[in-house]
């Protein structure tokens, strides 16, 4: 935290000293700079969609992987292997292009926004596959004796799930889930390849404008430093929030293995 402020102060001072065009740098930043504001809002909106869907998929399939019946287990294993086995950028391109090909000539659907939505879902599914493995490991970490103890006092199966298994699983899995979320936030940048107007897209756009418009090419560095900074701030806020949740629910003897 201290290091971050120091770096920012130094960068600002360097701007005051005329090392780069400070006025241009400040004009780009939200909320004044239109492009980066749109980019920031889009990135946050993508997160708001991808995180809950990815988590729901991860939770559902992770749970299914620990099922006693073979069908949900096999289904979940197929899901995980499929979506883990491809680079997310390939998955996104695939989802986008396949949707467009299928809907070609269909005038009842707005093809491009629809294809973009499918790609967003594909990214969520990719993260969901990783989260499913985290959830599975978390559920398996709850000893069978805890469940037997629940049975021994007459708790129903659903009560054991919601009151014993899940609370213990969450405490064990939270650090790994936080890690995956941090990774997912930055993976939303891959959606810029199919035209999502997120921070990364805006960076490419601003750079192109600069280059084509014959501006000072050095300023490209300023653009990307600011974009990197905005991603950093988003990730920092999310991971700190998760750490706070972790701390709130910390119980002696149930900490996840500390790295």
């Amino acid at each position, binding site marked *: 935290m201290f290091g971050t402020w120091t770096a920012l102060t130094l960068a600002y001072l360097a701007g005051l000293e005329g090392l780069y065009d400070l006025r241009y740098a400040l004009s780009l930043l939200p909320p004044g700079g239109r492009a980066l504001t749109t980019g920031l809002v889009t990135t946050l909106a993508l997160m708001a969609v991808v995180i809950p869907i990815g988590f729901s998929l991860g939770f559902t399939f992770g749970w299914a992987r620990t099922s006693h019946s073979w069908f949900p287990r096999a289904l979940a294993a197929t899901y995980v292997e499929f979506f883990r086995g491809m680079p997310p950028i390939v998955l996104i391109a695939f989802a986008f292009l396949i949707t467009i090909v299928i809907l070609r000539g269909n005038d009842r659907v707005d093809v491009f926004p629809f294809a973009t939505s499918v790609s967003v879902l594909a990214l969520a599914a990719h993260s969901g596959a990783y989260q499913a493995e985290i959830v599975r490991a978390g559920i398996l970490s709850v000893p069978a004796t805890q469940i037997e103890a629940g049975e021994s*006092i007459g708790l129903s199966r659903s009560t054991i799930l919601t009151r014993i298994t899940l609370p213990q699983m969450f405490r064990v899995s939270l650090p790994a889930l936080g890690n995956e979320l941090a990774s997912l936030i930055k993976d939303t940048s891959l959606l810029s390849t199919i035209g999502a107007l997120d921070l990364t897209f805006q960076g490419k756009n601003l750079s192109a404008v600069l280059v084509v418009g014959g501006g000072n090419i050095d300023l490209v560095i300023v653009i990307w430093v600011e974009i990197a900074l905005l991603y950093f701030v988003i990730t920092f806020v999310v991971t700190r929030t998760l750490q706070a949740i972790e701390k709130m629910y910390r*119980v*002696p003897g149930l900490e996840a293995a500390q790295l």
Partner: protein
Amino acid sequence: MITVQNVHKWFGDLHVLKGVSLQVNKGDALVVIGPSGSGKSTLLRCINLLVQPDEGDIIIDGVKVNDPRIRPEWVRQQVGMVFQSFNLFTHLNALENVMIGLRKVKRMDRAGAERMARFELERVGLADKADAYPAQLSGGQQQRVAIARALALNPKAVLFDEPTSALDPEFIREVLDVMTKLAEEGMTMVVVTHEMGFAHNVADRVLFMADGVVVEEGTPDEVFDRPQKERTQAFVGKILG
């Protein structure tokens, strides 16, 4: 109170219980002894249906409980269980461990459940540890909380599965004291244990099991001092030194 009739249990090819029968009268303490692998734990787990018997009947207070029409959850409210490794819920503190059954099984309101749980913790001498998590308690204290958790549901009987075997020697006494007090108060108990002093002093009946069958049964004096069967003599001789 508890009648076990000709119960058989297989785990795969392993014939763990080979026709076990026993009877525990209301207010009695039955101690089950025997070498490891003799089926004692499986027998206890059959009584509260943590393990479903393959053959035979379990009758509790006149009700045949291993009947498809009877919910196992209901049976387990009637018969409490205390485990060798305590098995307290690790994410709940002592009070919450005792409360959860009252809230979720007995459907009591929070205030009532808390009052009841504090009373049960006091009975096992742990009123001051209500806020402690299992990891912050000694083995003996954890086992006493586990006993309070079982008693809170006001069961008709309590099963103890080697309740002191996982304890450091200095904590065994406090757990046995709680169990002795419970027996004196007239709780119906089935206790699997290697604590022969406890068995001698507290048990109304002692049952010796080996290889999935009841070899011998009698009063503590009969089984410990005048065992009739050769296997009992050998076992009793070894553990009493």
